[in-house]
Each structure stands twice: as structure tokens, then as C-alpha cells.
């Protein structure tokens, strides 16, 4: 077996023109598939940025608002008290999440996301690059996140002042968070009380109740009790999945990405399928000669499958490498570029490239199995 696979390898790679065309087709296809799915994964991650950055174990929310962190439905204060009284809750704190307009020095307005942290615990606070976390309690204190949106606030420094809903705001800290936000707005952290004071609110003000269970085994009970209150408790992962699910299935982003991924697959399939089929057709007489000399049908099938599989694997590696290179380069130059190569993306691209190899190989196998050695004799 090994010997005939060496023969298959030499027949493939020594045909440099065809082999290059096959590799280009597979690489290009994998590149497109990974680009599409990675961009989508990047969008999904950014959509859950606040959930990831705050990092609470359990998020209690109104069940009507699970689509995104910004579309929350405020809850009355008693929910916080009720949650705190559930057995298995270590602590529970309120969180404000909303948007506001900041008036900049040049007179223009910039939309911002405002996160109001529990005044007593500051649960979910970001990691500070500059400033002191205690200064968040200072008069009009706000912490700004230094992410790709940071320049939209005119690159504020410690002490920079701004105007928010006719209130004076002062930057007392510059922070960093694991994940930048999707919606293109800078993020400001302040205390819960200041947030609901400065930003116009509805009757109820708690966007979320963040819960830390005493242990993971308490989570089901907490969820059950929250449900009895008429609210919804989701673990961090579940909430991220709910946001992702909304984007995947209830917006055009998921459909468009799926379509583009399928198109990438079809482009790769058409290039590789046609090139590989041509490669087989051009070598058909050689396969016939091998058959005449005593090669069995299944051995020729191994040859073709090896050639298709080898091309697919090399093309897969090149495609992943090219994608990663481009994404890395893009992130260096374009801070707002959201793309993330995940194991799921790699797996999906691998499955698709295997499908390309299988379909291309199948067409070749059919032709080779049909060739009669007698045709070789007849010329």
C-alpha cells in the first residue's frame, strides 16, 4: 500500500501545473470559508462583549430581553432583594447597562455605552491601565475603556471633562477589557447610582442582577427560583449563546454569512473539482495502463483518494495559514476588524475541504473504474 501511495504522490506533485491549480483552488476555498466564519465568530464575540467583560456567573433579566445587552428591560428593585434571598446565592448586585450621548469639546455628540456598577462592590469592574478604582466614587467620576472606539472620545486622559445629559463627567480611570464592543460606541463605566441619576431612565432601573452562586450545584435551583419570580436566569455561557443565537437565526448576519460560506465552498468545489477531474482525464490512459499491468480497481481508488486527500490537507493548511496571517495583519492595521478563528471554524472548514476532496475524488474514481485496459491496447 505504502509503495502505491508514493507512486500516487509522485504522479500528483510532479504535475506541477495541475498540482498548483489544485492547491490554489483548495487554499482559496479554505481561506474564504475561514474568513467568513471567523468574521462571524468575531461579530458574535463582540456582541457578547459586556457579558464577557463583566464576567458574572449568572445574569438575571427580563425574559423578553435576551437578544443583546443593550435591549434589556429594566426590572424593579424587589427582584434584587428576592434574588438575594434565594438559597445558594453568595451575592447578587444590580447592573445598569444603557446608552447616552456625550458632548465633546468640539461641540459634537458621541453615543456611548454606559455600564453602572454596583456602588458597594463594583462587581464587574474593568482592569485599570491608569487611575485608581476608588476615584470612580469621586464627583462625576467615569472610567473609559481604551479600546478601538476610544479615539471617538478624542483620546481622553485622566481629568478630561465631558458633558453627559447636561451633567459634567470627568475621566478618573482608563481601563482595558478582554473584548471590544460590537456596536461601535466607546464604553464608560461608572457607579450604578450615578448612571441611573445621570441617564434618563424608565420607572424601573435595574438592567440586570448579577449573581454569584455559592457553588455550581446551586445554579439549577437559583434558575428555578428566578423563573418563579417571572424572570430569567442565564449562566454567562447561556447568555452568550442566546445573543449568538439571535444574531445567527433572527438577523440577516447569520444568513448572509452562511450564504457566503456556501458560495466559498462552491467556488472551491468548482475549481478543485474541475481541475482534479481534468487531472484524472489527462491521466486516464495511465490509469488504464496500470490496470492492464495488474493494478486492482481498489488500488486505483486508493491512488485517487490519496491524491485528493493530500491536496485537500495541504490546501487546508495553506488556507488556514493564509487566513490567520491576513486576520493578524488586519487586526494590526484595522482596530475595529472583528474576526476570530475558532476551533469550530477550523472544523467546519476541514469538513468542507474534505467534502470538496470527496466529491472531486468521486468523479475521478468513477471515470477510472470505468476505464477498460482493453481500451489501452486498442489505443
Amino acid at each position: 500500500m505504502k509503495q502505491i501511495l508514493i507512486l500516487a504522490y509522485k504522479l500528483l506533485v510532479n504535475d506541477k501545473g495541475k498540482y498548483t491549480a489544485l492547491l490554489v483552488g483548495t487554499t482559496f476555498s479554505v481561506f474564504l470559508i475561514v474568513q467568513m466564519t471567523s468574521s462571524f465568530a468575531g461579530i458574535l464575540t463582540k456582541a457578547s462583549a459586556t457579558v464577557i467583560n463583566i464576567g458574572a456567573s449568572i445574569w438575571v433579566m427580563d425574559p423578553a430581553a435576551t437578544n443583546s445587552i443593550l435591549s434589556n428591560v429594566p426590572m424593579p428593585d424587589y427582584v434584587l432583594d428576592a434574588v438575594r434571598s434565594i438559597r445558594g446565592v453568595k451575592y447578587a448586585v444590580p447592573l445598569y447597562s444603557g446608552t447616552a450621548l456625550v458632548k465633546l469639546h468640539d461641540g459634537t455628540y458621541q453615543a456611548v455605552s454606559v455600564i453602572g456598577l454596583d456602588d458597594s462592590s463594583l462587581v464587574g469592574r474593568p482592569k485599570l491601565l491608569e487611575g485608581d478604582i476608588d476615584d470612580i466614587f469621586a464627583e462625576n467620576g467615569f472610567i473609559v475603556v481604551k479600546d478601538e472606539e476610544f479615539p471617538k472620545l478624542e483620546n481622553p486622559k485622566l481629568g478630561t471633562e465631558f458633558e453627559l445629559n447636561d451633567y459634567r463627567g470627568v475621566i478618573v480611570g482608563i481601563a482595558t477589557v478582554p473584548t471590544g464592543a460590537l456596536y461601535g460606541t466607546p464604553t464608560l463605566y461608572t457607579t450604578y447610582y450615578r448612571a441611573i441619576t445621570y441617564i434618563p431612565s424608565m420607572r424601573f432601573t435595574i438592567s440586570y442582577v448579577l449573581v454569584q452562586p455559592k457553588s455550581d450545584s446551586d445554579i439549577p435551583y437559583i434558575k428555578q427560583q428566578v423563573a418563579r419570580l417571572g424572570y430569567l436566569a442565564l449562566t454567562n455561557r447561556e447568555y452568550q449563546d442566546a445573543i449568538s443565537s439571535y444574531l445567527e437565526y433572527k438577523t440577516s448576519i447569520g444568513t448572509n454569512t452562511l450564504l457566503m460560506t456556501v458560495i466559498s465552498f462552491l467556488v472551491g468545489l468548482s475549481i478543485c473539482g474541475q481541475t482534479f477531474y481534468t487531472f484524472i482525464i489527462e491521466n486516464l490512459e495511465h490509469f488504464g495502463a496500470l490496470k492492464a499491468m495488474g493494478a486492482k480497481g481498489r488500488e486505483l481508488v486508493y491512488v485517487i483518494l490519496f491524491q485528493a486527500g493530500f491536496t485537500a490537507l495541504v490546501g487546508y493548511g495553506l488556507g488556514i495559514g493564509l487566513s490567520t496571517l491576513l486576520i493578524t495583519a488586519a487586526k494590526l492595521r484595522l482596530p475595529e476588524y472583528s474576526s476570530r478563528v475558532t476551533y469550530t471554524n477550523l472544523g467546519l472548514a476541514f469538513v468542507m475541504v474534505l467534502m470538496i476532496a470527496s466529491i472531486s475524488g468521486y468523479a475521478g474514481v468513477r471515470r477510472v473504474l470505468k476505464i477498460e485496459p482493453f481500451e489501452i491496447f486498442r489505443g
Partner: protein
Amino acid sequence: MPKGAIVAEKLTRWFGVGEARTYAVKEVSFEANWGEMLYIVGPSGSGKTTLLSMISGILRPNSGSVAVDGRDLWSLSDDEIADFRLNTIGFVFQDYHLFPRLTTAENVAIPLILQKRNWSEALSTAAQCLEIVGLGDKAQLPPTKLSGGEQQRVAIARAIVHQPEILVFDEPTASLDGETGRKIVSFVKTDILSAKRCIIMVTHDSRIFEYSNRIMEMEDGRITGFQQGQTV
């Protein structure tokens, strides 16, 4: 089963169905012996290649039998027939069918590779065979860099590399000039043919008749006669 090198009895093969049925070979019986170089000659369409295919395990006859060294060829399974071709027959095709992307030595080694021999051992044996056909210095060249006569010798080396008992040549001189053709067939007769080997050669080329032991003439799918060539 009779125990000549090849014993064909009432071999018949037709193509097409119904009114379109055409007999390529009709009830052909003959015997080829060890140590013999038997030519099959006749005009185009006389059934030479079809007959050659049936006796070498490539084309199944519609009726009749072929015994090779006493073994009924067409009673074997497909895999057994493939093994028979691989181990017992050496083929030299009319168009050589050398692989342009492989070196000459790799081309010659193909039957050994199909026999699952070790790659480097196969290449070493192939190089020895290329020495026999006078192309030892061309082992690393692709066949496309060789002349027609050299390519024919490569094809012969490939046919003999696995020491088959029966060699089958289909129009071996069709693409060669007269001088080269005669040289190659003379080489086959003197250096390749042995008492333990049988060579069947289909040809149109009367310039090489002098090298045969026996000539079998065919026309319209039937044997029309035998001529005695040189004796072994």
C-alpha cells in the same frame, strides 16, 4: 488443462448487440510454446489485438478458454486475473504508455511497485533492467527526454523487470524507423527470449518477420494459417 505456455481453444469475442453484433474473434484455437516468439499478423480489424487481450487476461472472451501454463485463465476471479497479469505477463503497449511525470527508473519499477516491493529495492532492480536494455545512464531522466527507440526500450525494461513468463508486445515497431525497429526486436529475441519465456507479438511490420519463430496469420477474426519463422 493442456500445459503449453498458452493454449487457446475456440476463443470467440463479439462486440455490439443484435444486428450490430460484430465478431472480432471467432472460434480461434492455437498453442504457443515456451521459448517461442510467436507473431500474430494480419490486416487492421482482423482481431489481432482482441485475441492478444483475451490471452493476456485483459478482455474476457464470450466463449472458449485460455490456459496459461495449464491454468484456466478465465475461470479466475477478477482479483486473481489482475494478479495473473501482474505476475505472469509483461506488457509492451503500442504507445508505450510511459508516465511523463516519473523518471525512467520509476517507470520501469511500476510492476514491482504494484507487487508491493520496497520502493528503493524496486528502483534498484529497475536500474539493473535499464542497464540490460542499454539505458543505464538515462535512469533519472523523464521519458519525454528520450528518443522513440529509447522509450521503446524503457517499455521493454518495464515489461521484464518483474521476470514475467509471458511477454506481450502490441505493434512494438509501429512508431520506430526500420533500423531502430529491427535492432529492438533483435535485442528482444537474443536477450529477452529464453526457454522459460514465451513472447507473443502483434505486428504489421514485415521487416521484423525474420526474428519470429512462428507467424500466425489472421483475417476477419479467424486464423488463416501459420508460417514457420526461425527456429529457436
